[in-house]
């Protein structure tokens, strides 16, 4: 490889990261959350809202919680109600929405029959998800997987129908991946909005209906352009597992999914996010949804050179949590970004070094490279030049998922023409420098190699420290992104609970078995 990293150090980095996450995993395994339970409800095809517009998955889970039954897991209550009332889960939820009864008040039905009901419902989910996954992969094989780096663009009009128009244009211009950015801070909503939406700020609400609309539009385009087109949305947040659930049911290909983003950048309670991300990633692992981790966020506010090792540290932690969810490396879209101040002398050498470090540290992953944003300005021409160098470094260092920079990054969410210019530039640069990476090498112990080693060394130091005190304590102490979050503070803390000994989550259970033959790893 280019950096010739000290392989013992690399091994050490992984070991420590594993130990750091092992403890947290023990903590996770004892707990569930409202969102995890709503995920089960959604998998049991509970959808729609009550008369006040509250989503039925929230309605039924909140009801069971209010009546003190949630520690057993929602699956049992739904199944018991289905048997008792000989209703479908949807009918049960609607009835609860109409305040006709609480599942908890219903008489417990014959154990065997209820258990059978649970299995029946859960097996159906698994079958369904497998079918969706297989259809996607069949389509991918038929149409063919575009060459890497994938050209990844964002649509963010706030209106799903407008998004579709722009997404189609982007695909016909050469986009391989379309991400529909979520409306500002949807991650802070403790429910998933319902139905198609046309009003959002800075983005479009993530709803199952919106997923379906965009997926269909992209499939049409894929047929036209004879190229498989991937669809991306955002999971991290208070509904992390639920978003994964609807994504898996609507055939999405990627999800922004970070084990710590919600905690650090959205002040979501850490217990909540840790527990949620596990189920969320199980679903992604099972449905072969590529996760995109959010390391770019670290260097959006702190210095991209001095703090480069925090990116590496987070990448290693994300990798371990993904492994614990039984995810194969090829679905790990390990994040990093081109955020160095363009006024830094030799900034480009730092970028090359950092980009290669990610690439070589995760040879089997599918790294996601993010464009310059914080140092973009109103000078759209300079911005275009910054993006051109970013594109060059991406092809040169062999990145896999390439989120395009927009020349108007500092101004507004992309105009159609901004996206066109970004796509045509990426195509130009990728093609013009296609084999550059294969033809160059770097001076032994030169600037680029030294910098990469330095970053890795600092990352290991940081990990050692985190291991010392434990990940959660480290977060409380403000180790990451200079942001301190307390154990019991933050949004959604009240949505975490300890599983009762009769707790059962049939979907998670089946996924764990399928992915790793049982929970413990």
């Amino acid at each position, binding site marked *: 490889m280019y950096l010739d990293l000290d392989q013992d150090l690399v091994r050490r980095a992984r070991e420590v990261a594993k130990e750091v996450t092992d403890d947290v995993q023990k903590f996770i395994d004892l707990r569930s959350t409202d969102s995890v339970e709503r995920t089960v409800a959604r998998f049991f095809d509970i959808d729609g809202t009550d008369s006040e517009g509250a989503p039925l998955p929230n309605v039924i889970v909140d009801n069971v919680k209010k009546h003190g039954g949630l520690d057993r897991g929602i699956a049992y209550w739904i199944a018991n109600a289905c048997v008792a009332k000989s209703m479908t889960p949807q009918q049960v939820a609607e009835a609860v929405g109409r305040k006709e009864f609480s599942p908890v008040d219903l008489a417990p039905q014959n154990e065997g029959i209820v258990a059978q009901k649970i299995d029946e419902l859960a097996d159906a989910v698994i079958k369904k998800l497998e079918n969706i996954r297989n259809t996607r992969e069949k389509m991918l094989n038929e149409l063919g997987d575009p060459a890497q780096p994938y050209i990844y663009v964002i649509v963010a009009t*706030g209106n799903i129908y407008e998004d579709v128009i722009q997404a189609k*244009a982007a695909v016909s211009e050469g986009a391989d991946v379309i991400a529909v950015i979520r409306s500002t801070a949807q991650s802070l909503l403790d429910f998933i909005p319902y139905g198609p939406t046309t009003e959002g700020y800075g983005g479009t609400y993530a709803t199952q209906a919106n997923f379906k609309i965009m997926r269909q539009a992209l499939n049409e385009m894929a047929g036209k352009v004879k190229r498989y087109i991937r669809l991306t949305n955002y999971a991290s947040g208070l509904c992390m597992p639920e978003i994964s659930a609807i994504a898996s049911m609507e055939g999405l290909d990627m999800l922004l999914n970070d084990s710590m983003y919600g905690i650090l950048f959205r002040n979501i309670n850490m217990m909540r996010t840790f527990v949620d991300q596990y189920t969320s990633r199980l679903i992604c692992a099972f449905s072969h949804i590529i996760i995109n981790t959010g390391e770019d966020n670290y260097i959006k506010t702190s210095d991209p050179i001095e703090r480069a090792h925090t990116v590496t540290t987070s990448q290693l932690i994300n990798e371990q949590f993904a492994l614990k969810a039984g995810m194969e490396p090829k679905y790990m879209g390990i994040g990093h970004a081109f955020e160095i101040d363009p006024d830094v002398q030799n900034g480009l050498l730092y970028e090359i070094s950092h980009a290669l470090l990610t690439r070589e540290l995760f040879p089997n992953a599918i790294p996601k490279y993010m464009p310059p944003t914080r140092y973009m300005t109103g000078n759209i021409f300079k911005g275009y030049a910054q993006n051109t160098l970013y594109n060059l470094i991406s092809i040169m260092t062999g990145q896999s998922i390439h989120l395009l920079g927009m020349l108007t990054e500092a101004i507004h969410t992309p105009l159609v023409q901004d996206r066109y210019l970004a796509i045509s530039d990426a195509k130009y640069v990728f093609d013009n420098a296609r084999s550059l990476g294969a033809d160059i090498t770097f001076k032994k112990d030169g600037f680029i190699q030294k910098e990469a080693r330095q970053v890795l060394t600092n990352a290991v130091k940081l990990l050692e420290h985190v291991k010392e005190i434990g990940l959660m304590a480290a977060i409380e102490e403000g180790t990451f992104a200079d942001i301190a979050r307390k154990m019991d503070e933050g949004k959604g803390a009240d949505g975490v609970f300890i599983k009762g000994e009769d707790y059962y989550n049939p979907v998670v259970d089946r996924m764990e078995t399928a992915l790793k033959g049982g929970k413990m790893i």
Partner: protein
Amino acid sequence: MIPDVDLSHLKPYGDQMNDGVIQLSFTLPVPGGAKAREAAKNFVSSMGLSEIQIVLSEDIGENFTFFVIYAKTTKDIDYSSIKTLEIESPKMSIDEVNGHVMKYLGRQITIVGATIGSDAHTVGLDSILNMKGYHGDSGLERYRMFKVYNLGSQIPPIDLVRKAREVKADVILVSQIVTQRDIHIKQLTELADILDAEKLRDKILLIVGGPRITHELAIELGYDAGFGAGTMPSEVAAYVATEIIKKKL
């Protein structure tokens, strides 16, 4: 000034004085071709431009056509008579500001800052408030005579006002970064209305900032001042000190 510039009939300068050359780009939601080019041309001449050169007319798919155009303006403007409404505040050092406030006010100025509504951007506000400041220019927390409360981001206007009342704030500093669909207008108006409703408006110096904010816009929205992209904390400090002193005298 350049020797032969005519300030009362100012025009853009392309490669010679008064040639009036400008560059435009835009997208029309129609497929590419002669008709689209004609449409672009009509559109540009409707803006009073002549010698229109369509240098790029690219069908970018799905019935969109992107244009790059150079043209010459027929209009000129009177530069000499332009009056700008600008925030005028003297350049002052930290010590000068502190001394000034001490001398004329005799107490600390209380400042509450927040990014309101759904806006989660803090870097801008922090670079004005935090010790660290912006590009080597220290933030307001570094000023002895300022008492600063930084509430952070995503603060509902109502909470911001509550806090302001609680600490008897002299100044409110609001940051608005996200402007898409004019959400900042909505949120800033909401804040101003609450302050009016609570009869706090005239007791408080109300300031907004953000990359898309102009002083003009701030005035329109009933704010005392607006600070835009690249604002330095010291500018804000000097303005706050002088204004509060004016107010209290």
